[in-house]
Protein backbone atom coordinates (compact mmCIF):
# COMPACT_ATOMS: atom_id res chain seq x y z
CA UNK A 1 0.00 0.00 0.00
CA UNK A 2 1.05 3.58 -0.51
CA UNK A 3 2.34 5.92 2.14
CA UNK A 4 -0.12 8.52 3.39
CA UNK A 5 0.10 12.32 3.48
CA UNK A 6 3.00 14.14 5.25
CA UNK A 7 0.72 15.28 8.07
CA UNK A 8 -0.22 11.74 8.93
CA UNK A 9 3.37 10.63 8.69
CA UNK A 10 4.61 13.39 11.00
CA UNK A 11 1.89 12.67 13.54
CA UNK A 12 2.65 8.99 13.42
CA UNK A 13 6.31 9.70 14.01
CA UNK A 14 5.39 11.78 17.02
CA UNK A 15 2.91 9.26 18.40
CA UNK A 16 5.00 6.19 17.83
CA UNK A 17 7.62 6.97 20.47
CA UNK A 18 5.14 7.31 23.39
CA UNK A 19 3.25 4.21 22.29
CA UNK A 20 6.46 2.22 22.12
CA UNK A 21 7.61 3.57 25.48
CA UNK A 22 4.29 2.72 27.12
CA UNK A 23 4.39 -0.80 25.69
CA UNK A 24 7.96 -1.28 26.87
CA UNK A 25 6.99 -0.07 30.33
CA UNK A 26 4.10 -2.53 30.47
CA UNK A 27 6.39 -5.38 29.46
CA UNK A 28 9.25 -4.53 31.81
CA UNK A 29 6.99 -3.97 34.81
CA UNK A 30 4.87 -6.98 33.96
CA UNK A 31 5.72 -8.76 37.20
CA UNK A 32 4.88 -5.76 39.36
CA UNK A 33 1.95 -3.87 37.85
CA UNK A 34 -1.05 -4.90 35.76
CA UNK A 35 0.05 -6.06 32.35
CA UNK A 36 2.86 -8.18 31.09
CA UNK A 37 4.45 -9.49 27.96
CA UNK A 38 1.29 -9.96 26.01
CA UNK A 39 -0.33 -6.62 26.85
CA UNK A 40 2.81 -4.60 26.23
CA UNK A 41 3.54 -6.50 23.07
CA UNK A 42 0.04 -5.87 21.80
CA UNK A 43 0.42 -2.15 22.52
CA UNK A 44 3.69 -1.95 20.59
CA UNK A 45 2.13 -3.95 17.78
CA UNK A 46 -0.69 -1.40 17.62
CA UNK A 47 1.96 1.26 17.16
CA UNK A 48 3.50 -0.86 14.42
CA UNK A 49 0.12 -1.11 12.70
CA UNK A 50 -0.17 2.68 12.82
CA UNK A 51 3.30 2.92 11.34
CA UNK A 52 2.35 0.48 8.61
CA UNK A 53 -0.75 2.41 7.64
CA UNK A 54 1.08 5.75 7.59
CA UNK A 55 4.32 4.82 5.87
CA UNK A 56 3.18 2.02 3.58
CA UNK A 57 4.19 -1.56 3.61
CA UNK A 58 6.78 -1.99 0.89
CA UNK A 59 9.85 -2.12 3.05
CA UNK A 60 8.73 -4.45 5.84
CA UNK A 61 11.00 -7.38 6.29
CA UNK A 62 8.80 -10.33 7.06
CA UNK A 63 11.73 -12.70 7.25
CA UNK A 64 13.25 -10.70 10.11
CA UNK A 65 9.89 -10.59 11.89
CA UNK A 66 9.39 -14.33 11.65
CA UNK A 67 12.93 -14.96 12.91
CA UNK A 68 12.29 -12.61 15.84
CA UNK A 69 9.05 -14.44 16.57
CA UNK A 70 10.72 -17.82 16.56
CA UNK A 71 13.51 -16.45 18.74
CA UNK A 72 11.07 -15.21 21.34
CA UNK A 73 9.19 -18.49 21.51
CA UNK A 74 12.38 -20.51 21.51
CA UNK A 75 13.87 -18.47 24.32
CA UNK A 76 10.67 -18.97 26.32
CA UNK A 77 10.79 -22.76 25.94
CA UNK A 78 14.56 -22.75 26.57
CA UNK A 79 14.10 -20.97 29.87
CA UNK A 80 11.57 -23.65 30.68
CA UNK A 81 14.17 -26.29 29.91
CA UNK A 82 16.77 -24.47 32.00
CA UNK A 83 14.33 -24.92 34.86
CA UNK A 84 15.12 -28.62 34.72
CA UNK A 85 18.48 -27.67 36.28
CA UNK A 86 16.52 -26.57 39.33
CA UNK A 87 14.42 -29.72 39.30
CA UNK A 88 11.48 -29.30 36.95
CA UNK A 89 10.45 -27.85 33.65
CA UNK A 90 9.66 -24.10 33.96
CA UNK A 91 11.05 -24.09 37.49
CA UNK A 92 11.86 -20.55 38.63
CA UNK A 93 15.57 -21.10 39.22
CA UNK A 94 16.52 -17.42 39.53
CA UNK A 95 14.07 -16.19 42.14
CA UNK A 96 15.60 -15.09 45.39
CA UNK A 97 19.13 -16.15 44.50
CA UNK A 98 20.47 -12.61 44.69
CA UNK A 99 21.75 -12.75 41.13
CA UNK A 100 21.86 -9.38 39.36
CA UNK A 101 19.34 -10.58 36.75
CA UNK A 102 15.99 -10.36 38.50
CA UNK A 103 17.25 -12.34 41.45
CA UNK A 104 16.76 -9.73 44.16
CA UNK A 105 15.32 -11.04 47.41
CA UNK A 106 11.89 -9.83 48.37
CA UNK A 107 12.04 -11.19 51.90
CA UNK A 108 11.49 -8.60 54.58
CA UNK A 109 9.21 -6.61 52.35
CA UNK A 110 5.99 -8.30 53.46
CA UNK A 111 3.36 -5.82 54.47
CA UNK A 112 4.71 -3.24 52.08
CA UNK A 113 1.28 -2.10 50.87
CA UNK A 114 2.19 -0.14 47.82
CA UNK A 115 0.88 -1.19 44.40
CA UNK A 116 4.51 -1.85 43.43
CA UNK A 117 5.06 -4.26 46.23
CA UNK A 118 8.48 -5.53 45.20
CA UNK A 119 11.70 -4.22 43.65
CA UNK A 120 12.00 -4.18 39.88
CA UNK A 121 14.81 -6.71 39.80
CA UNK A 122 12.93 -9.42 41.72
CA UNK A 123 10.72 -12.27 40.47
CA UNK A 124 13.34 -14.46 38.79
CA UNK A 125 12.48 -15.92 35.44
CA UNK A 126 9.00 -14.37 35.35
CA UNK A 127 10.32 -11.04 34.12
CA UNK A 128 12.54 -12.72 31.54
CA UNK A 129 9.62 -14.78 30.30
CA UNK A 130 7.58 -11.59 30.05
CA UNK A 131 10.25 -10.00 27.87
CA UNK A 132 10.42 -12.93 25.50
CA UNK A 133 6.65 -13.13 25.31
CA UNK A 134 6.69 -9.43 24.54
CA UNK A 135 9.23 -9.93 21.74
CA UNK A 136 7.20 -12.79 20.32
CA UNK A 137 3.90 -10.93 20.50
CA UNK A 138 5.29 -7.77 18.90
CA UNK A 139 6.76 -9.65 15.99
CA UNK A 140 3.89 -12.11 15.68
CA UNK A 141 1.08 -9.57 15.68
CA UNK A 142 3.04 -7.23 13.41
CA UNK A 143 3.61 -10.12 11.06
CA UNK A 144 -0.12 -10.85 10.99
CA UNK A 145 -0.97 -7.21 10.29
CA UNK A 146 1.75 -6.83 7.65
CA UNK A 147 0.75 -10.03 5.89
CA UNK A 148 -2.92 -9.17 5.80
CA UNK A 149 -2.16 -5.56 4.82
CA UNK A 150 0.09 -6.63 1.98
CA UNK A 151 -2.48 -9.13 0.85
CA UNK A 152 -5.35 -6.69 0.98
CA UNK A 153 -3.68 -3.78 -0.78
CA UNK A 154 -1.20 -5.17 -3.23
CA UNK A 155 -2.72 -8.58 -3.70
CA UNK A 156 0.74 -10.03 -3.43
CA UNK A 157 0.32 -13.70 -2.85
CA UNK A 158 2.58 -15.20 -0.33
CA UNK A 159 1.76 -17.57 2.46
Amino acid at each position, binding site marked *: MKAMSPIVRTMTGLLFAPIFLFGAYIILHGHLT*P*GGGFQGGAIIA*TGMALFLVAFGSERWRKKLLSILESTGLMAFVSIGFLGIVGGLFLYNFLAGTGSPIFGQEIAGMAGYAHPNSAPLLSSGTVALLNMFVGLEVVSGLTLIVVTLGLFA*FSGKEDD
Partner: protein
Amino acid sequence: MDWSLLYDAIHVVILLGIVAASVLVVRMKDLVSAAVALAAASLLLSLEFFILQAPDVAIAEAAVGAGLTTAIYIFAIKGTRRREEY
Protein backbone atom coordinates in the same frame (compact mmCIF):
# COMPACT_ATOMS: atom_id res chain seq x y z
CA MET B 1 -22.36 14.32 46.69
CA ASP B 2 -22.67 10.55 46.46
CA TRP B 3 -19.88 9.41 44.20
CA SER B 4 -20.97 5.79 44.13
CA LEU B 5 -24.18 6.82 42.36
CA LEU B 6 -22.13 8.45 39.61
CA TYR B 7 -19.97 5.33 39.47
CA ASP B 8 -23.04 3.15 39.00
CA ALA B 9 -24.41 5.53 36.38
CA ILE B 10 -21.16 5.28 34.40
CA HIS B 11 -21.33 1.51 34.71
CA VAL B 12 -24.86 1.40 33.30
CA VAL B 13 -23.99 3.82 30.50
CA ILE B 14 -21.00 1.73 29.47
CA LEU B 15 -23.02 -1.50 29.42
CA LEU B 16 -25.77 0.17 27.39
CA GLY B 17 -23.10 1.48 25.04
CA ILE B 18 -21.69 -2.02 24.51
CA VAL B 19 -25.12 -3.39 23.65
CA ALA B 20 -25.91 -0.41 21.39
CA ALA B 21 -22.60 -0.74 19.54
CA SER B 22 -23.15 -4.45 18.99
CA VAL B 23 -26.66 -3.78 17.66
CA LEU B 24 -25.03 -1.31 15.26
CA VAL B 25 -22.69 -4.10 14.12
CA VAL B 26 -25.78 -6.06 13.09
CA ARG B 27 -27.57 -3.14 11.45
CA MET B 28 -24.77 -1.51 9.46
CA LYS B 29 -24.77 -2.48 5.80
CA ASP B 30 -21.47 -0.73 5.27
CA LEU B 31 -18.89 -3.15 6.62
CA VAL B 32 -16.34 -0.47 7.50
CA SER B 33 -18.94 1.22 9.70
CA ALA B 34 -19.69 -2.15 11.25
CA ALA B 35 -15.99 -2.65 11.96
CA VAL B 36 -15.83 0.77 13.60
CA ALA B 37 -18.88 -0.10 15.70
CA LEU B 38 -17.10 -3.30 16.70
CA ALA B 39 -14.08 -1.26 17.74
CA ALA B 40 -16.33 1.01 19.81
CA ALA B 41 -17.87 -2.02 21.50
CA SER B 42 -14.39 -3.31 22.21
CA LEU B 43 -13.23 -0.03 23.69
CA LEU B 44 -16.29 0.20 25.95
CA LEU B 45 -15.72 -3.41 26.91
CA SER B 46 -12.20 -2.58 28.03
CA LEU B 47 -13.58 0.24 30.20
CA GLU B 48 -16.03 -2.25 31.65
CA PHE B 49 -13.13 -4.59 32.42
CA PHE B 50 -11.43 -1.75 34.23
CA ILE B 51 -14.56 -1.11 36.29
CA LEU B 52 -14.69 -4.80 37.15
CA GLN B 53 -11.12 -4.48 38.50
CA ALA B 54 -9.31 -6.30 35.75
CA PRO B 55 -6.79 -3.69 34.57
CA ASP B 56 -4.48 -6.17 32.87
CA VAL B 57 -7.30 -7.56 30.75
CA ALA B 58 -8.47 -4.02 30.06
CA ILE B 59 -5.07 -3.09 28.60
CA ALA B 60 -5.03 -6.19 26.44
CA GLU B 61 -8.59 -5.69 25.23
CA ALA B 62 -7.95 -2.05 24.38
CA ALA B 63 -4.79 -2.84 22.43
CA VAL B 64 -5.99 -5.99 20.71
CA GLY B 65 -9.74 -5.60 20.46
CA ALA B 66 -9.97 -1.93 19.65
CA GLY B 67 -6.64 -1.59 17.85
CA LEU B 68 -5.35 -4.64 16.06
CA THR B 69 -8.59 -6.50 15.40
CA THR B 70 -10.08 -3.39 13.84
CA ALA B 71 -7.02 -2.94 11.65
CA ILE B 72 -7.27 -6.55 10.52
CA TYR B 73 -10.98 -6.16 9.80
CA ILE B 74 -10.40 -3.01 7.75
CA PHE B 75 -7.68 -4.76 5.76
CA ALA B 76 -9.96 -7.72 5.15
CA ILE B 77 -12.77 -5.43 3.99
CA LYS B 78 -10.32 -3.69 1.63
CA GLY B 79 -9.37 -7.11 0.33
CA THR B 80 -12.97 -8.13 -0.33
CA ARG B 81 -16.13 -6.10 -0.86
CA ARG B 82 -17.23 -3.15 1.22
CA ARG B 83 -21.01 -3.49 1.13
CA GLU B 84 -23.07 -6.26 2.63
CA GLU B 85 -25.58 -7.01 -0.12
CA TYR B 86 -28.25 -8.75 1.85
